[in-house]
């Protein structure tokens, strides 16, 4: 199991050919209080870098992009029902969706946790 990060501040935890996606702690801190989340429906095909979910804070609306291509196997209904989970546990209970990877090699271009930390420090 490996966790990767994107420059758009998503994380992706890969287990075999499936993965879980969410927004990072840095992202939730920048967004502020999350009041609305929309997750993709099961079966939807998402593209690497394509819009997959929506997160809205009191201040602003943001798109959540899929770090890799794949087919959605589950959206997090608990997060839809309680959007504040994206603030309180962004890299745990506040996950957005799970997907089956179309091309596992796509994760190779993503950042590991050290690279992502350095990226955030430079922001």
């Amino acid at each position, binding site marked *: 199991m490996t966790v990767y990060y994107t420059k758009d501040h998503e994380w992706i935890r890969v287990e075999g050919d499936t993965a879980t996606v969410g927004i990072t702690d840095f992202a939730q801190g920048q967004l*502020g*209080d999350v*009041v*609305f989340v*929309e997750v993709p429906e099961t079966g939807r095909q998402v593209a690497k870098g394509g819009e997959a979910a*929506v997160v*809205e*804070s*009191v201040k602003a*609306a943001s798109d959540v992009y899929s770090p890799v291509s794949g087919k959605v196997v589950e959206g997090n209904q608990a997060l839809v029902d309680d959007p504040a989970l994206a603030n309180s546990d962004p890299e745990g209970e506040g996950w957005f969706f799970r997907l089956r990877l179309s091309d596992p090699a796509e994760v190779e271009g993503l950042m590991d946790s050290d690279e992502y930390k350095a990226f955030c420090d430079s922001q």
Partner: protein
Amino acid sequence: MSDTERTLPLDGWHRGLGARMVPFAGYHMPIQYEGILAEHRWARESAGLFDVSHMGQLLIAGAEAEKGLEALLPADLRILKEGRPKYSLLLTEDGGIVDDLMVTRRGEHFYMVVNGATKEGDIDYLREGLPRTVVVDHMKEQALLALQGPKAVDALARLVSEVADLTFMTAGAFSLAGVTAWISRSGYTGEDGFEISVPASSVEAIATLLLDQPEVKPIGLGARDSLRLEAGLPLYGHDLDPATTPVEADLVFALSKRRREEGGFRGWHRIARELAEGPIRKRVGLAVEGRQPVREGALVVDAEGSEVGKVTSGGFSPTLEAPIAMAYVPLAHAAVGTAVSLGHRGKIFTGRVVPMPFVPHRYHRKGAPK
């Protein structure tokens, strides 16, 4: 972040409190401290301290000041008593809104507070429009604080006992921590509260003293916006602009009775026509179904999908825990209860026209129990 923004007297104080600073109105301003929702709720339940020193504080002086201002503003200044702030507008010849403001008679002169992003243009407008004998002084040496919330009076009266005797929309000069402060019982949240003008050289000591009161926490621009939206108060540059008239904006209360009848201020011809015949469109409040906020720029569409209006402010109401918005809609769609469709982020939302304020005002009006 660009470096063209200027700093305000409390810049370091905000940063020391852990504020997140953003560029706003040409300054570095605090958007939040602990979080917008928590700050919003604190201001509704206790007392919030806002730094609004970016706003323009002007002194307008001269024997012809009253007459000169009446040629510009739709306010009845002739009957405006000392120490009674009055909400008014700067207008174009065509009745469009150049800015909204508060004007108070203060002895021989008028004290005016205008929006931060528009103050330079307002000063030019006033200097060009007023007689040459009238002097417009931009009080750059003054800072401005707002203390807002049901417990604001408890906190401030501990330092200046006389403020407990002020009622909504009254003001005076008081001694606060050894300096003269101009304090009015007014604000931009819908709550009871005060606006406090003090010398910039003393503002840090006064802000610290206010924050030392147990009722008080600092509140950023984020909650200021959600609070004023719930209170149904328009924000210049969003809900008001030079293409919008006071009648369209539902600000007829700012047009004093004598001035409405007699005219003699900029934009009167269009405004008089709209008062008589009704405006084409009107600012209304919308309650939006679901949880997703509909924001500024969303389209109001009719049954055929044609654009008939626009959302000018929108967000999530922390008090109602639901999305709310202000929009301009044709008069035919402006009645309370009218269903509207809104296009935003590629989706259609359903809303209905509701009365404003969304959250009731709790001002300390004259005659109300203490």
